[in-house]
């Protein structure tokens, strides 16, 4: 079984970062592996541990993405691949096209894992778009793998008000929900291995891909400035009074 996990760095929102006016200039920040990609990695690693698989981490972007790939290696991926691209404003459909081309070029991939969304831009569309580009079925937000048998992948997913057990034939695109369990942390030996690993990189041109240019609306970024918003601080008040004040506030807000 051969699995790719698409990973990317995002802005570490807990660290200071600069908000420019254009998305393409969103460059001064501390990068961190996207937490949703960590869940995807966790799911893939659990599959590797239980069923055995070759895990390839893949990322599209600048050299900076190597830190995301190294973390994936440290966690237990067997190899890592970066598709070189210096453009800072790739749309998700273009990323999906690049990933699809790379997955075809690697060949024999059974599962392509994606994170649910990035925590900074929060579109959450790449996995669906990748499935469309590859024309593979997309199993979104699965919570548990039940079985993998003769190329049939059986998993659980909560949907509507039900917990479904669904099965589908490889190859597939999959995203994982948080229920796979908390994403693991890289071990010291893993980090040591990853620090020394050579990360393969392919120039975008090698994929023989022509990125389609669909029309884009003009867009800009505006910083949202919120001042202190606390209108009222209640302390040293007896509970009944507090309850009365709060209840009134709620009634006002809902009316």
């Amino acid at each position, binding site marked *: 079984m051969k699995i790719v996990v698409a990973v990317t760095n995002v802005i570490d*929102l807990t660290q200071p970062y600069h908000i420019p006016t254009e998305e393409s200039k969103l460059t001064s920040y501390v990068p961190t592996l996207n937490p949703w990609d960590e869940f995807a990695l966790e799911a893939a690693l659990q599959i590797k541990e239980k069923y055995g698989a070759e895990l390839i981490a893949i990322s599209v972007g600048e050299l900076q993405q190597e830190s995301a790939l190294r973390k994936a290696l440290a966690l237990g991926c067997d190899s890592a691949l970066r598709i070189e691209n210096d453009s800072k404003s790739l749309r*998700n459909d273009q990323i999906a096209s690049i990933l699809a081309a790379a997955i075809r070029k690697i060949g024999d991939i059974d599962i392509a894992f994606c994170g649910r969304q990035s*925590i900074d831009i929060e579109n959450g569309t790449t996995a669906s778009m990748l499935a469309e580009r590859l024309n593979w079925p997309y199993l979104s937000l699965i919570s548990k793998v039940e079985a993998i048998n003769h190329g049939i992948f059986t998993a659980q997913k909560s949907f509507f008000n039900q917990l479904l057990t*669904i099965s589908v034939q490889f190859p597939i695109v999959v995203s994982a929900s*948080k229920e796979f369990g908390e994403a693991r942390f890289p071990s010291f030996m893993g980090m040591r291995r990853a620090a020394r690993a050579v990360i393969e990189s392919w120039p975008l041109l090698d994929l023989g891909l022509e990125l389609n240019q669909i029309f884009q*609306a003009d867009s800009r970024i505006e910083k949202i400035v919120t001042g202190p918003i606390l*209108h009222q601080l209640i302390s040293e008040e007896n509970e009944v009074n507090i309850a009365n004040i709060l209840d009134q506030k709620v009634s006002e807000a809902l009316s």
Partner: protein
Amino acid sequence: MTNLPVLIVLLGTDNLGESLSSLVSAANLFTAGGSQTSDLLYIGPENNQVLLTAASFGISRLFHLPINIVEIMQKSFLPTLENFLKSKPFRAIFFSNMPLPLEISAHMGAALQTQLITAVDTITVNDGITTVTRKILAGNARQVFNLKDQPVILTINMACFSAPEAFSATHFLETIPIANDLSEERIKVISSTVIQQFVALEHSRVIVAGGRGLLSNPNPTPAGIPAGEIEQWKYEQGFNLLKNLAEKLNGSVGVSRALVDAGYAPYELQIGQTGKTVAPEVYIACGISGALQHTMGMRHSKLVIAINKDARAPIFEVAHVGVIGDLYKILPEWVKLRK
């Protein structure tokens, strides 16, 4: 400005009442000042309520792709949908920003080579230019898109669009069935069990949320509970307290990540960066310290009330009304008040 109609896509899995009204409200903002009409595409099993509601909102054309709920998840209708959308030009296509509609919108965006803007929270038309915005960077910035005439697919952050006014008189609605040309299902359903259903947090006007503070329950633990289960007991007591209040306020209960990670609360209830993002009218944070992880998911609530014993808890930075006190003393009084 073209006069092409806009299309609202409603799935059978959507929360029919709220999703439809938010979508219509968004579409109305979009078409304001223009002469476009809004059409509705309903993908799901026969449902008279959808028909009536749509009619009451003044929608004149209803396309219906009749499939059952599970078939929506299996997504074998995608080629049919793709063909339908290719055959009929629309100015804009609206989906709700819930997981499944978002997946379908993304698939269509890629298939139709059309720009997709997700989680839209405002729509304004000024001097003929339609502007939509969405929040990014955990709500610290917004992306602003000035739309031209090219078609666009939008997914709507439903908490940001309140219900439109319904027409008083029943409107005439034309229903057009779509040929049910389903391809073979690649995803097969082997079994299903009904699970406890939580009121979708995204739709709640009031959310009462609890954090680690629920575990500092001062009430004496009844005898006979093993040491290892005391925390569980404390959590359950606290959760019931939140639930009582939420019921009184017609709202629902959410939790912070700490309680989900500790295994007490189900993931469905988690609010925050890796949980749900909500923006209700009233958000009552009880015993939640307010780590960035959590506030990312609730900071755009209209009224935030924070109850915490620790005056320095960061939750007070995002709260409109802060109460320094014990939730176990305040909430019971509040519940009594609403009796």
